[in-house]
């Protein structure tokens, strides 16, 4: 399959690099066999991603709450602000390395990238639109039918094509050019002594959930932040399994400098607050993760260790990703 994807890409457009698996990353999960990334498909997906036509009153685009310079999150907002400034209940997660995601949303309720956009488009506090209506608007638009033709062969605008184009753009949002990646791939960069020590501490204290190289094991866990104001039950709403109550998906540690605030409801404004939570703020709540069930709940860390861990975490910031013109609104 890798071969055919490669072969296709090459013949479609020499300058356009289709999806590339970074050297230090595993095989992607997304089924590229059913949706080969082409220049035309990707560009259509990018245009759709940044087009407010996807919302009821044509004011909110995907890019409104997933801003590239914030690693495709809504930086500075605890929960996302949608249509007519209505507030959501959760923090916008980054559009980053989604080709490796085994599930989507903080609760994992969506299991296929191709199905994901239906949720924000139809959510009453996000875009509050119907996909049927978006498709009508796209059909009536002067440019879109031609762009669908370039991407898929005919001017037909269908749900599947609409979703697949968005998936092509989102799957291309790969963050794999942080300092950490360069060090791991032996591209010439090296960690400072502090970063090296931080890396060792990360492996000891963080890596069981925030597993390399994606820095998440994609599991659902209760990290002891305590029940939020709205009693969000997290994964429980999807499985109706009491052992899933208050569990949320482990987020990646990549690009933390750009993605504050943190946690599913954005309650921690700084990384210091996050580390302090793990060292001294973990609360005994239903289904608290076993890893955090120590004599004193949490992960013991001294102030010096926190400084080192933070130095390492900074090596996961990927400036190339947040500045990549290919992924920007054109």
């Amino acid at each position, binding site marked *: 399959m890798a071969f055919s994807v490669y072969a296709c890409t090459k*013949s479609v457009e020499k300058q356009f690099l289709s999806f590339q698996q970074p050297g230090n990353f595993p095989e992607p999960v997304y089924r590229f066999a059913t949706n080969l990334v082409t220049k035309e498909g990707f560009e259509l997906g990018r245009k759709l991603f940044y087009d407010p036509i996807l919302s009821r009153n044509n004011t909110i685009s995907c890019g409104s709450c997933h801003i590239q310079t914030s690693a495709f999150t809504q930086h500075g907002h605890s929960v996302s602000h949608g249509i007519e400034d209505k507030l959501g209940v959760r923090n916008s997660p980054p559009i980053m390395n989604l080709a490796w995601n085994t599930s989507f949303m903080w609760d994992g*309720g969506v299991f*296929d990238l*191709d199905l994901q956009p239906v*949720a924000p488009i139809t959510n009453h506090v996000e875009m509050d639109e119907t996909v049927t209506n978006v498709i009508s608007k796209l059909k009536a638009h002067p440019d879109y039918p031609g762009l669908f033709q370039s991407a898929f062969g005919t001017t037909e605008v*269908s749900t599947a094509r609409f*979703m697949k184009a968005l998936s092509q753009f989102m799957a291309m949002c790969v963050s794999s050019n942080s300092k950490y990646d360069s060090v791991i791939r032996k591209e010439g960069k090296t960690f400072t002594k502090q970063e090296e020590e931080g890396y060792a501490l990360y492996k000891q204290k963080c890596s069981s959930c925030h597993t390399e190289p994606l820095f998440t094991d994609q599991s659902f866990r209760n990290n002891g932040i305590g029940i939020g104001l709205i009693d969000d039950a997290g994964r429980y709403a*999807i499985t109706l399994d009491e052992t899933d109550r208050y569990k949320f998906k482990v987020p990646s540690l990549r690009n933390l400098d750009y993605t504050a605030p943190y946690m599913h409801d954005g309650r921690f404004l700084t990384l210091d607050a996050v580390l302090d939570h793990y060292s001294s703020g973990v609360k005994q709540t239903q289904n608290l993760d076993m890893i955090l069930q120590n004599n004193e709940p949490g992960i013991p860390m001294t102030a010096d260790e926190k400084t080192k861990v933070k130095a390492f975490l900074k090596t996961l910031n990927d400036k190339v990703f947040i500045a990549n013109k290919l992924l920007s609104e054109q």
Partner: protein
Amino acid sequence: MKSYLSIAALLFVSLVSCKKDDVPENNNPGRLSIEFDNIVDGQNLFLNTVTYTNSSGENYKVSTLKYYISNIKVTNTAGVEVVVPQDSSYFLIDESDEASHSAEVTIPKGEYRQVAFTIGVDSLRNTMDIARRTGVLDPAAGANGMYWSWNSGYIFFKIEGVSPASAEAGNVFMYHIGGFGGYSSPTINNIREVKLDLTTGGIAKVPAGGESNIHLMVDIAKLFNGSTQLSIAAKPVVMFDDFSANISNNYSTIFRHDHTEN
């Protein structure tokens, strides 16, 4: 572009050939239509206008009634089962849309004594690539409100209405029943099978090139009065919830074969 096109062509060819293999060996096909006639006790169901009384003595009006029927199978008088090709076997019955009340399938000519179908959408189709989900299965358009975007999956059965027994705003009641068993973690499974014997009401005699019509009565009164006595006052709203299994168990009994038009 050339190789991209040829791969697309290959994919198309393989899809087409798959489809072909699924069609039962059948040189003399005829049509079988299954009519879903929604009623309440002995009365026809009318949306929004007529007040009905359920087995808990609660008055109610129905504003929406929709359900998926899929995976239709018929058994002939010799006991041989014919499975309708899956791609042609999904129907969304919508009380507000007369044209949707009849599910028409193509099967070999023959005499059939049993019809079986799924209420809802099987787990395979719930997790299939979006390109294979067209028509009523298009999760964004065709499903017409019968899809949960936040917890990927079809709503199998939806009834909404108003009742003075409901303490909800606007006295509404709504049952949105789905759940195909979960993708990566097991959860509720409300997929229900229905088997109806046709011998009393009349076997379906499907002629080559012709049609037989199986007329089913779908009694909403039994939705409230099944293995669980469903009270609107006690449960005005049921969606993705463990209790939904009681409702799907109830609605698995609402289908009755009335007569056949050969």
